[in-house]
Structure formats: C-alpha cells, structure tokens
C-alpha cells in the first residue's frame, strides 16, 4: 500500500492520478499515522506554504514517518515535501522540518549575477549532474526537462542526486538510501516525470 499523506496543502488529485495511471495498487490518501505505519511506501506531496507542514507534527504523522523511514520504507517528498526533509525553511521559521537532511531551504535571491531574478521559478527546467547511483532517476538523462513551481529551494549537498540551475544550482532531487525528494512535479512533467514515479513505485 502506498500512503499519500494529506496535510491540506494543495490538491493531491494529480499525484494520485499519476500513481494509479502507472498501475500502482492500493494508493491511499490519508491523514492517519496508523495508516502510514502500515504503508509499504510513503509519498508526501505538497504545493503551498511550508507552514502547512506543521500539521504533520500536530497529527503525529512526523513520528510515524520517521519510524517507517528508519525501517527502510521508501519515502518520496514532492516540492514542499522535499523541503520538509530538511531542517526547515525561511518561509516559516517556527516550523521544524524532519531534519533528515542538514540545512535550511531558502528563497530565491531577487537578483542573480547583476540581473533581476523572477520568483516563483515556474516552468520547465533541466536536471543536471544526475548521480549515476540514483534509483529514482534510473533511465533519466542529464538535460531532461521537468516542471517546477516554487519560490524556496534546498541547497546542494552530498545527498543531492540532481541539480537544476536557476539563480545558481539548487537541489532538484535528493536521495539517500530509501529517502528521496523531488523539487519538481513529476505528476506534471510528462514522460520524464512518469518515469521518476514509476521508478519509485517499482522500488
């Protein structure tokens, strides 16, 4: 069973639709820690404000997720779901992330290399420097385009599995063992995105 965690941040329709389209069986949208504890895989989608992740803690979902991650259950965070894997975000300083990966997510700078930088970063941008050992990006080539829409981003670290360049490089994909996150929207990234989701479903 794949648990898709609903924390009332944006709509989950697209993610669930894509998982079903790929033949994933037993996709359950849930706010229950008990359901998460029974899951074989966990997906944390999310568009919207980092503060909405506070609900995960309040509902006991953070603890349930932490336990499952420790057991080795594959976890995929999407967009704000990726950012939640870090210590936090300057978007909502009082809200703590999972702290699975070090450092904070920060807003895009207003200018970059002397020119104005539009924010949010909206549209199709390419994945670069794809780590060869990434299971999530199996079959995805450097330069593949995916769809982004976000104003905050995670810094590049040793757990980064692919970067994207916009106002400098940021983490487009993070992956350490069973814990993975994508800043882009695989459910909206045509064939490349479906490939990423399929890789996750087949783990």
């Amino acid at each position, binding site marked *: 069973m794949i648990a898709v965690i609903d924390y009332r941040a944006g709509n989950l329709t697209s993610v669930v639709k894509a998982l079903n389209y790929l033949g994933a069986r037993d996709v359950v949208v849930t706010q229950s820690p008990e359901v998460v504890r029974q899951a074989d895989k966990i997906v944390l989608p999310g568009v919207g404000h980092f503060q909405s992740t506070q609900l995960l803690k309040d509902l006991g979902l953070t603890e349930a997720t932490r336990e499952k991650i420790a057991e080795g259950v594959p976890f995929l965070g999407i967009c704000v779901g990726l950012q939640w894997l870090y210590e936090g975000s300057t978007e909502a300083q009082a809200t703590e992330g999972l702290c699975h990966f070090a450092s904070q997510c920060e807003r895009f700078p207003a200018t970059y290399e002397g020119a104005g930088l*539009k924010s*949010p970063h909206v549209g*199709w941008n390419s994945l670069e420097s794809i780590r060869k050992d990434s299971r999530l990006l199996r079959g995805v080539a450097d330069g593949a385009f995916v769809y982004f829409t976000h104003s905050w981003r995670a810094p590049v670290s040793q757990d980064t599995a692919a970067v994207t360049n916009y106002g400098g490089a940021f983490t487009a994909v993070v992956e350490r063992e069973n814990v993975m996150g994508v800043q882009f929207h695989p459910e909206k*990234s045509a064939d490349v*995105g479906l490939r990423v989701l399929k890789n996750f479903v087949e783990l």
Partner: protein
Amino acid sequence: MLTKRIIACLDVRGGRVVKGVQFVDIVDAGDPAELAHRHAAGGADEIVLLDITATHEGRGTLLDTVTRTAAKLFVPFTVGGGVRTAEDAAAVFDAGADKVSINSAAIARPELIGEIGASFGAQAVIVAIDARRGALGVEDAEVFVSGGRKATGLRVVDWAREAEARGAGEILLTSMDTDGMRSGFDCELTAAVSAAVQIPVIASGGAGSAAHFVKVFGRGKADAALAASIFHFGVTDSRELKGELQKAGVSVRLPC
C-alpha cells in the same frame, strides 16, 4: 536553463472548443479532452482551458469537462471561467486542475486572489487580464472583463501590480486588439507588464507564426506564450514551433 513555455489554450463554450476573432465570430474547433491530449502529445508545455461564456452567462465552470480533460493529462493544466469564490476554485482543483485563472471575479473582489492562494498556494492562481488600448500607448491600456464586454477604467499595468501584491502566481495577459488576428502579440504591452511585476507573464493574443513567438519572448519579455487557433487547425504543433524557436536562439523544452 529555465525554458520559455508554449501554452495551448482551449476556449470552451457549451462543452466544445471554439475560437473567435477579437472575442467574437466564434467557430467550432473540437472536443476539449481530445484536443488537450493532442496538444500535450504535440509538445505543448501546458494546457489552459477557458470556459469563455461562464461569467457572461452566470454559470459555473463545466466540471465534467475539466475532469474528463484532466484524466490522463500529465502536464500542467489551468482552468478558467466561472471561478468566483474559493469554493469554486476548490471544485476545479478537485476535478484535476493544477491552477485556476481568474479574471472578472478578481476585479470584482480582489481578495479572492489571496483566498485561493491561502488554500492552494500562490502558484495555483493565475490572474488573467484582458487588455485593450487601440491606438493608445501601453500606459493607457485598459482592463476589460466579462469576456471583453465591459470596460473597468483600470489601467493594465496598475492592475497587474495589484494582482501580484495580492498574491497572484502568474499573469495571463491577453491583448484584445490582437486576439485571433494572427498578426503577432502586443510585445510593447507585454514588456511593460513583465517589467512591472516579478511573477511570470504569459502573453496571449495574436500568435500567427514562429516569428511572433520569437519577438514576444525577446522584445516582449514574456515568460510564456499562449496560442489557440494556430494549433487547432493544424497550422503547426508545439514541437514544430519549438524547433523554429530553438533555431532562433530561444530556450525551449526540446525534445518533448
């Protein structure tokens, strides 16, 4: 590198895709779901469905059309027309839309922009602006509502700034002067709006050739450009168009 987006637009009336010239003289162009998938397969970066008569006739968005269109669409999908409240927006998102486009309702009650954004994120809110300036300068371009039927007295650049301040994620700027004419986008107006806001601006109205897109991405400073009629009647598809743009030095999603 962030690419320039090509957006295919479906203007829907009574469940069918239609296309007009300068917002009138409507002709039938096909089934929304079928056309959306054809455009996505043809390399469109995004699909927009506008229920063009919803506000005018005072009815809600055609949710069944949205559901059917969204069913197997894996590129961003925007729906506009008849979204008057945050509840209307929620119903459209439930039906499978990723963003809503609001126009008349945002003018009538600008708080709506922030209300939808609060629940679904700013990225999910596109404020559509229908602009007319005739022979006047860009600073005098005026905002029209109700499918171009009503003048508001608001200046386009001012309203774009306010929409951004209230939390819009993108601006969809349609020139009523160039709409359906296939004689090129209003690059001057697009550039003025793009310079006035930080959020992405989608140019619309007047697409007729690849050269028009090159101009609106260059001189017009557009982040995305939207077209309808040139795609519906098979003049070109997005992939072919992008090939031309790439040759002209525009960064696009290719292969797609």
